[in-house]
């Protein structure tokens, strides 16, 4: 039984981009060791924190999207906790994919009826698991 999870980790700003990548790679191998599949590993680069964390004002963010047995989450979180270079993390069970897909489908069906499509919103692409503006610093 596998479930999809999303873990966001925040690394201390004193790291270099490479060091942070290394940490991410090791987390990914942890997931694989536990018979999980990494579906996405998305570094967001250095971002400003909304509030001070361990005296840091910035942090390296990254999103890990994976499919694994629940036990893997514990192991991943344990490792994150032990790693002093990671200051924050959050794991969320991804239970909205179906809902988003259905909404996108509905939208696709509806479009031809209501005349020319409005170019403004394109939710189908906007939520492929969570792209954010910002990206790499």
């Amino acid at each position, binding site marked *: 039984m596998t479930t999809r999870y999303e873990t966001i980790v925040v690394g201390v700003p004193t790291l270099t981009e490479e060091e942070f990548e290394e940490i991410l790679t090791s987390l990914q191998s942890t997931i694989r060791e536990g018979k999980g599949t990494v579906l996405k590993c998305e570094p967001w680069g250095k971002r400003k924190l909304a509030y001070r964390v361990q005296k840091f004002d910035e942090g390296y963010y990254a999103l890990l999207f994976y499919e694994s047995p629940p036990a893997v989450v514990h192991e991943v979180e344990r490792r994150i906790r032990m790693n002093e270079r990671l200051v924050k993390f959050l794991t969320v069970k991804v239970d909205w994919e179906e809902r988003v897909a259905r909404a996108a489908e509905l939208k696709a069906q509806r479009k031809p009826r209501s005349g020319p499509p409005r170019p403004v*919103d394109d939710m189908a692409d906007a939520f492929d698991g969570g792209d*954010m503006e910002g990206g790499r610093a």
Partner: protein
Amino acid sequence: MRGREEPKRPGRKKFLFRRRKFCRFCDEKIALIDYKDAKLLQGFVPERGKILPRRISGTCAAHQRELQQAIKRARAIALIPFTTD
């Protein structure tokens, strides 16, 4: 899901025209209020950092619940503030 008519309140004089409130998420057909979308969430936490009440924003109950969850998650990973001083 947007009602058209303002409920008639006979005893009250209307001296200011107030725009009808509606749920932004219903209107824009947002399928998911993503906790990672700090830009979007920011619009629902005014300066003080508190969650904007429904009576102000007009968000429907279902979406307000989802929004609340998203804001709380975003706070947990320092995407948006708990408070500002």
